[in-house]
């Protein structure tokens, strides 16, 4: 079934930001807490699905030469819509994510999917592709945020887990922690892949 494959690839071969190293800025910046990562991921997924559907719908209408400009306008529109919805319904999250909400516009994942997938495929597949990639991104961000929050503050989703005797590593929730955690996760994933490949041989 192609449709299932288009969905699951977002979690396996095209898992952002681990497999495709795209969209690093929000990944690094907002993952100080698991729920920030979750919120950012879902906001990005919303924009990604909407823009994929629209780009796919209009793929025969938009002239080749101005396509990037048109894509940017559509993506930016959805981003502003997300900004407004977030202010209206999730204000504290909006405050925490700060300028990274408008910066969804320049998240290379979204323009990348519009250009590489949605502009060449039917609506149904494009929607599923957006959903898969978006949820994969959400998952990565939540996991990364969870690790940093747990080690950096001893809590997960704001609930203290590790007890009072745990001394938090302040390093983890600061900027360097973001780079190092992502680097180590990437290393572990490469390690697992290469081990798997060796076993297959």
């Amino acid at each position: 079934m192609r449709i299932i494959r288009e969905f699951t690839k977002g979690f396996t071969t095209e898992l952002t930001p681990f497999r495709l190293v795209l969209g690093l800025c929000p990944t690094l910046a907002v993952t100080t807490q698991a729920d920030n990562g979750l919120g950012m991921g879902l906001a990005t997924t919303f924009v990604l699905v909407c823009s994929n559907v629209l780009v796919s719908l209009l793929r025969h209408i938009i002239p080749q030469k101005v396509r990037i400009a048109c894509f940017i306008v559509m993506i930016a529109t959805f981003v502003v819509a997300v900004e407004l919805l977030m202010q209206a319904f999730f204000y504290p999250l909006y405050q925490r994510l700060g300028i990274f909400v408008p910066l969804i516009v320049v998240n290379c994942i979204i323009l990348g999917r519009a250009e590489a997938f949605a502009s060449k495929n039917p609506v149904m597949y494009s929607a599923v592709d957006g959903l898969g990639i978006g949820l994969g991104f959400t998952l990565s961000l939540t996991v990364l945020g969870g690790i940093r929050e747990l080690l950096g503050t001893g809590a997960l989703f704001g609930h203290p887990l590790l007890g009072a005797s745990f001394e938090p590593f302040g390093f983890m929730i600061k900027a360097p922690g973001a780079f190092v955690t992502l680097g180590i996760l990437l290393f572990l994933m490469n390690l697992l892949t290469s081990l798997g490949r060796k076993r297959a041989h």
Partner: protein
Amino acid sequence: MNEITKMVLVTTVICVFAAALLAGLKQGLSARIARQEDYYVRGPVIQELLKGSPNDPLADKVIIELDGEEVGVYPWIEEGKVRRIALERHGKGGYGGDVVVMTAVDLETDRIYGVRVTQHKETPGVGSRAADPVYLKRYQKLPINQEIRLTRDGGQVDALSGATRSSTAIADGVNRAAQFVLKHEEEIVKRILEKKM
């Protein structure tokens, strides 16, 4: 159809749709967004300043348009009378720009009831000390019928040493609020009670 015409047409149509969608969304959500902002940005300050009010000052907020500006006023209503109000004004002359000051005024005595800083960009550890509630206590009970200024400008409030510019901006914010209340007290009370009815 000519290629260039098509390009221009498609781009224009997309832009028009985008603008229409966003304008509609903004229109529909702006009231809710303003409420959320009030609740999360000013809510904590209002709760501190008007602690003990029998009504909910955030819910009873009125927006008063006078002299070409919009001012949100948060009332303390007790036994059908407006006893205290809090309002936000920008104080000019801070080190990092405007200092946004929330001032509560007691309408029965016409004196300042309390002052808090809602937003500032003063230098952390230097100017920011002027936003400390302990320092801001100096404003309490000052009568609003005279200009509120720092002692160095011939007024009644001492500046915090080392944070003169931040103190000046706060005094300016409080003074603007006091002058506004002094000038429009009747109108403000009338509007609040009208909304409450």
